[in-house]
């Protein structure tokens, strides 16, 4: 078999172009601590962050464009912080608010809403390649993956310190032991390591090696921005990561056991337990298990009886088929006795079957379960697998440890009794490690500006791109080190003047920095698929903001996904998109169309395509048609005096701003056109006005402004 998990085409080509050697890799250097730079346009910055940006612009002879108007900014901040458009009533309040800090107040309100966590958790779930099935050729459901999704949402909502967040995901089970804690979050968080794509039919050796490889990959890329898994087969050609480094990490993960569940069935050879969670979960679990045991006993008993019955039946037919040998009486006696015995067994059988059925219909409630991790017995290092092939181990055992390119004197190495995940987590979150903070603040920046200060958000290695604003990146990383607070960092960025720039283009900007690398304006962005779907649901009035209980996948049980009816896999839902089941290779249609990233890969930066199948979806998909109709009914139920008012309301619901005259006219034209149409041929018997306003909402959902965050000249509108 071939184990080329890493290849060096590009690397070889680039060797000449780049200086080799890890010592020089910028991302591994200690955080810079530069003074806030002085700027010529001293009245422009409203924060230190702005001064860093402006200084860079001034050095390039660039001037920032004007600020975005209030309607743009409330829409931008609402989508960026909660993934939803602003409520029209809130827009009115905001516009009427004359306090100088009205924007900060808005931001604080958005940050405090539960929708904040639902938006930002999804960003982390992208890099955590969260999914509810194994993927690969034989794709098995993971019914107990959803608690991890909820854990991440909760973590962002309560602003769990980022260092703690990482420690829990890498070693929550070990923290629980150390802290004598029953906190269920500590059971759930390590699912991060256990829910990667897996080939459940592989043999034990390959399976474990692949799981370990995937765990190293996700940890190092998601958290450190380093591609370490190349070193499974060879020393990394560009980054200072050796095979020895890789196998020192591998030892830590080989000493750990992922608990992802699954059951033993065809193509599924590596089932594990999952952990019961919630109040009284263990007791409930025990009761349920004991009950299952009883069912098993009854089933075995029944089985035994059936065998017995079969044997008697066989004996009977043997006797009956024998030639009469003259002693027919004796034969008859024997036959009778067998018949009596059989009757007795059959009677018992009926009873036992009833008993078993009773037991089966009275299964006690089960608790919720979660995927998790635990340590294996006798943690130890591992040997190097030649060429990455786990059946060819060579040399001596490599002691467990971390990457040698980053020496942290005060960090403890893995101890004898434990896998070493906790030590790894502490090494990663140690303040002498500049990478964890740099990578995370860059991820946050990326989500607020559409591009990171380091464009290659998942790669801080030699093949990644260098930062556009190194001093600013490190300034933010310092801030992260001071309190590890995601919310405070997000707040400080969103409240900056840089974030509030308009997206208009300036002549000079376009000439000197057309890419807007140096942030002389806000780059327009397309919304992510969750925001597009959630907005339609919101406008329709049917968005259910309450989180659902569990996941659709839980109810499906442990199965091959291909055996599940698609309708069962993706039933209609009015919940926010973050709660839709993420089954590998079977994503909701809208996810596939609007660039939801592959849950097989660490993916901190989504693409944003514009393809016709998206437009076709927005015009014809039954879900969208339903949303549009509900929105029309909701609009008509408001009993507004005339269609002009309705047009303005519909427009504000969908696009936040009040429409201009030509836009109202366009809407009214469509309404009257449709109302006049002969509807006798239509399949659905709805009032003509519902049909007409449904068409209006489908048009609003389909227009560019609905799914792009772009500036629109506000002067003519509200």
């Amino acid at each position, binding site marked *: 078999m071939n184990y080329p998990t890493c290849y060096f085409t590009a690397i070889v080509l680039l060797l000449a172009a780049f200086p080799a050697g890890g010592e020089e890799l910028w991302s591994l250097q200690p955080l810079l601590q530069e003074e806030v730079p002085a700027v010529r346009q001293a009245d422009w910055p409203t924060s230190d962050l702005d001064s860093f940006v402006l200084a860079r612009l001034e050095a390039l002879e660039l001037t920032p464009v004007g600020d975005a108007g209030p309607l743009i900014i409330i829409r931008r901040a609402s989508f960026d912080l909660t993934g939803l458009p602003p409520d029209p009533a809130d827009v009115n309040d905001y516009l009427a608010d004359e306090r100088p800090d009205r924007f900060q107040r808005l931001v604080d309100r958005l940050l405090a809403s539960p929708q904040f966590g639902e938006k930002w958790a999804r960003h982390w779930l992208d890099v955590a390649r969260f999914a509810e099935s194994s993927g690969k050729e034989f794709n098995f459901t993971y019914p107990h993956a959803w608690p991890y999704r909820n854990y991440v949402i909760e973590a962002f909502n309560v602003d769990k310190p980022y260092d703690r967040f990482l420690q829990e995901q890498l070693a929550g089970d070990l923290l629980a032991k150390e802290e004598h804690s029953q906190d269920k979050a500590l059971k759930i968080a390590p699912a991060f390591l256990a829910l990667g794509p897996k080939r459940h039919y592989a043999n034990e050796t390959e399976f474990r090696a692949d799981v370990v490889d995937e765990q190293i990959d996700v940890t190092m890329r998601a958290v450190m921005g380093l*591609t370490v898994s190349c070193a499974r087969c060879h020393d990394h050609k560009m980054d200072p990561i050796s095979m020895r480094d890789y196998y020192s990490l591998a030892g830590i993960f080989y000493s750990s056991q992922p608990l992802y569940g699954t059951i033993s069935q065809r193509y599924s050879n590596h089932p594990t337990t999952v952990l019961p969670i919630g109040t009284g979960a263990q007791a409930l679990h025990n009761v349920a298990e004991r009950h299952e045991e009883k069912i098993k006993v009854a089933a075995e008993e029944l089985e035994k009886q059936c065998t017995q019955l079969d044997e008697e039946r066989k004996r009977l037919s043997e006797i009956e088929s024998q030639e009469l040998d003259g002693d027919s009486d004796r034969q008859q006696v024997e036959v009778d006795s067998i018949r009596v015995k059989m009757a007795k067994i059959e009677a018992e059988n009926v009873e036992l079957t009833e008993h078993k059925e009773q037991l089966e219909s009275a299964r006690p409630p089960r608790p919720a379960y979660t995927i998790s991790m635990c340590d294996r017995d006798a943690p130890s290092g591992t040997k190097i697998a030649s060429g990455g092939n786990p059946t060819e181990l060579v040399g001596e055992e490599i002691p467990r440890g971390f990457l040698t390119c980053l020496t942290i004197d005060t960090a403890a190495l893995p101890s004898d009794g434990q896998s070493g995940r906790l030590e790894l987590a502490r090494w990663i979150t140690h303040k002498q490690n500049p990478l964890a903070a740099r990578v995370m603040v860059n991820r946050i920046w990326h989500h607020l500006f559409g591009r990171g200060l380091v464009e290659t958000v998942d790669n801080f290695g030699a093949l990644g791109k260098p930062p556009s604003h190194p001093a600013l990146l490190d300034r933010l990383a310092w801030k992260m080190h001071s309190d590890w607070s995601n919310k405070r960092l997000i707040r400080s960025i969103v409240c900056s003047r840089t974030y509030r720039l308009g997206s208009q283009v300036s002549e000079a900007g376009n000439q000197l920095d057309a*890419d807007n690398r140096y942030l002389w304006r806000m780059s327009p962005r397309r919304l992510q698929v969750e925001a597009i779907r959630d907005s339609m649901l919101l406008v329709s009035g049917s968005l259910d903001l309450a989180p659902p209980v569990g996941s659709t996948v839980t109810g499906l049980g442990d199965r091959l996904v291909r055996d599940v009816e698609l309708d069962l896999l993706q039933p209609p839902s009015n919940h926010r998109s973050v709660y839709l089941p993420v089954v590998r290779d079977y994503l909701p249609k809208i996810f596939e169309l609007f660039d939801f990233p592959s849950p097989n890969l660490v993916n901190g930066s989504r693409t944003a395509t514009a393809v016709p199948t998206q437009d076709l979806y927005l015009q014809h998909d039954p879900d969208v048609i339903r949303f549009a109709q509900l929105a029309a009914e909701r609009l008509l139920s408001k009993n507004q005096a005339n269609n002009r008012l309705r047009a303005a309301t519909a427009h504000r619901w969908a696009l936040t701003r009040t429409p201009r005259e030509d836009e109202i006219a*366009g809407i009214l034209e469509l309404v009257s056109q449709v109302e006049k149409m002969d509807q006798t041929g239509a399949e659905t018997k709805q009032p003509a006005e519902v049909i007409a306003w449904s068409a209006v909402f489908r048009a609003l959902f389909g227009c560019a402004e609905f799914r792009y965050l772009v500036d629109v000249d506000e002067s003519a509108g509200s």
Partner: protein
Amino acid sequence: MQFSQRPLTRRGWMQRSMAGCGSLALSALCGSSAAARENTRELPKSHFKPRAKRVIFMFMDGGPSQHDLFDYKPELKKRHGKEGKNEGAILMGPRWKFTQQGESGMWIASELLPHLAQHADKLCVVRSMHTESSAHPLAVPMLHTGAFQSTRPSMGAWVLYGLGSVNESLPGFITINPTRIFGGPSNYGSAFLPSTYQATRIGWIKESLKDVSIDNVSSPGIPAPVVAGQLRLIQSFNQALLERTRAVQDVQGAIDSLGLAVRMQTALPHSMNLSSESPETLAMYGIGEGPTDGFGRQCLLARRFAQAGVRFIQLSLTGWDHHSKIDLLADRCHEIDRPVAALLTDLERQGMLEDTLILWGGEFGRQPEQQALDGGGKDGRNHNADGYTVWLAGGGVRGGLSYGETDPLGYEAVENKVHLHDLHATILHLLGLDHTRLTYHYSGRDFRLTDLYGDVVEDIVA
């Protein structure tokens, strides 16, 4: 994805606009050939003249038996029933009669494929294929994506990424009746390439094409004039937005994409509607006649899509995994024989065979011996990744060529061996793409369809 005012690079443009609108359509949209030249600057330099403009890939799911179809082995026939290479295993000669066909005298089991046999001089039969794995779950992704360790872009996605598509109204990559297992959608997916490059799927494996359709080209219950009215309103909103915002590129992208959508709404159902075909054509493809109807429809659709400029079309037929009852191979062959022959005839008649590359084959082949020893039947053959056969036709390959050899009994390729990576490299080559330079930067390095491997098989290029 970034939005900016700079002239888009070709790659950037492709990432943003639809796959069904590549370089040609691009210049039309940009309104100037200068812009088009500008945009092709980042093209993976495909420095040879393309021999083929499009691909029709017929995936024979399960691994057809080359011993009974194309790889004629007199020695195997002679030693039928004797012990084979593996202890206790009994050799199984071809069950059907091979004859020499065409001017080239190519050996084909003409008894099984009588119609295809008449096209022997168009076929380039590669008998020395070998691949990495003889297990379906690994070999199927390997065939489609060149890898099985991790999820990689599919062949069609790479081709579309490299060339774009000339059709403004249809997707550039279409897969008909694909399999749902062994990787399922990732066999026609785009992996880390932008989702633009993934295939549009029509139906699932074994589904009758009579009843399938593409999603979302119409809304049942909503009259077409209503849809037309709402599309007009969208376009007027978008136009107004274009004038009022400076985010020109993004809004223009949305406008273009909607324009394409409107065209696709008509073009797709039109392409899929076979009623405009003459009864003679339908009969030639075997449509309406039981066993050949399914693959006949696939082949005719392929011709229609090819005509419309679709870049990569994949067809699939399952049921080639003959661990026992190899006699059933005759049924499979019957299903494809007339349709495939009809497609070759039809393409030639339309003058399209010369720039349409056809690839026929499975994920691997089969063993020259019975499988009785390890669970199969005395009348079945096990998988074989060390030697198997695929054939190509049209688009720049040498017709009437039997290329490469397996050993006398057909266990493994021995002469002019062609690894699957080599086949991938050659397909790209025929399309004018250098497989070592058709790369995509992802996760810190450049990826390609052929990984670190693959040599173009110059000998089969006409």
